[in-house]
């Protein structure tokens, strides 16, 4: 059950990147105005634990065209492919979330931010995590982060690309105003203009699940390049 919850959170974040930009309600992206945010020195952010699995997902699974039974087939196929991926690249050797924080936290500190880390557990309600971030602890702003990672393929017969999505929202504690709100996506590119896209290495694509699991080192390397690249981009966007 726990495994499914973790998979769900990853899928949720990856899906949110699409949902938040694709719904009738427009995602209100907001670039960070460093010059106007000189007063933001201390920030809180959630430190999520690693997912217990990295998902392998066919985004537009053909099963979804065939009603509930088809969707059930699609869900079972996703579970099976995710299992295959995690057998050859065990999650303990591909800790995407940890890698993100290992890169991001020192960068934020080197930029002059004092960072207060608030532990968060996958499965926790976002509202509870936000409340913990906003609890007065000397911070000027709270940086709410959600992230998910794995491999995505657009369809049943298209390539798998490494995918990591991060949604980052910085809220000024005093004014309660959102001063930065962006969606970042590594590897898998839907072409959505609301999403900041960071490309993977050109050879980081795999024609099917067999190719994805044939060379675990390459599969892991392509996936693990994502957190470092996104951490660099996000911290660079938060420069004052």
């Amino acid at each position: 059950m726990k495994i499914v919850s973790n998979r769900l959170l990853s899928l949720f974040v990856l899906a949110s990147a699409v949902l938040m930009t694709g719904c009738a309600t427009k995602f209100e992206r907001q670039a960070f105005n460093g010059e106007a945010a000189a007063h933001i020195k201390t920030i809180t952010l959630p430190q999520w634990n690693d997912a217990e699995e990295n998902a392998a997902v066919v985004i537009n699974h053909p099963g979804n065209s065939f009603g509930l039974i088809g969707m059930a087939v699609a869900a079972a196929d996703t579970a099976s492919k995710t299992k295959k991926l995690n057998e050859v690249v065990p999650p303990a050797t591909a800790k995407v979330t940890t890698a993100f924080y290992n890169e991001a936290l020192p960068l934020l500190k080197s930029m002059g931010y004092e960072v207060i880390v608030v532990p968060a557990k996958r499965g926790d309600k976002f509202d509870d995590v936000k409340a913990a971030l906003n609890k007065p602890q000397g911070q000027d702003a709270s940086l709410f982060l959600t992230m998910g990672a794995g491999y995505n393929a657009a369809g049943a017969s298209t390539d798998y690309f490494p995918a990591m999505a991060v949604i980052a929202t910085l809220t000024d504690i005093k004014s309660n105003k959102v001063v930065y709100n962006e969606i970042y996506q590594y590897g898998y590119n839907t072409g959505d203009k609301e999403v900041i896209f960071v490309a993977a290495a050109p050879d980081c694509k795999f024609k099917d699940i067999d190719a994805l699991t044939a060379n675990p080192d390459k599969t892991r390397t392509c996936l693990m390049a994502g957190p470092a690249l996104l951490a660099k981009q996000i911290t660079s966007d938060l420069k004052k």
Partner: protein
Amino acid sequence: MNKKQFALILLSTSTFAIAQTSEVKTETATVAATVAVAETCCKQYAELNKTALPLTLTKIFLDEKTPVYDFGNKAQAYILLELPKFTEPYSFIVHNFPLAPGMFNRTSFTQIALRIEMFDENFVSKRMYRHTGMKKHGIGFDKTVFINPQNQSERYALIYGDLTAAPEEATISQRDTMFVGTGFFVGGEDKKISLSSSDKGLITVEAKGLKEVK
């Protein structure tokens, strides 16, 4: 897999399905950055055609009829935005949508490798942003320009494409819907595209933090 696990996986998969069927709906206006005949009009920036910074999300087409100016490579299309007099901080977002101009070739795209130069009222250059320092939003270059108190002397934003920008390649992974007789079949496709630099194309401009003066 028990029933609850199964239901959760099913839910997550349908979330993707729903997400993929949604489309971005935004209100846009269109401004015609065109005049009757394209010609190299001017010897100095002060003589260039000006367009007021639009307050809402606005599409601007740079095409054959757009006024041109020679920035050093050849006469090329541009848009010169006239900024309002500074009263409070604001920003504007410039985004380029790459286009596939060929009727039969939908994989060769052109993009405007954005160059944005900020000028004061006497056309003295204050800041310059090049595409090489910009992020890609989807497949298009994108830049948010902030006008803070220290930038209040800036009154014009000149936008044009860097014609020397290197060609690029990209893959867009998207939904592919087919009608198969009994209904729609939703699948996915990877579209590999090439992006070459052009002075023509579509950009959007959106101001944030500005109120309409009545």
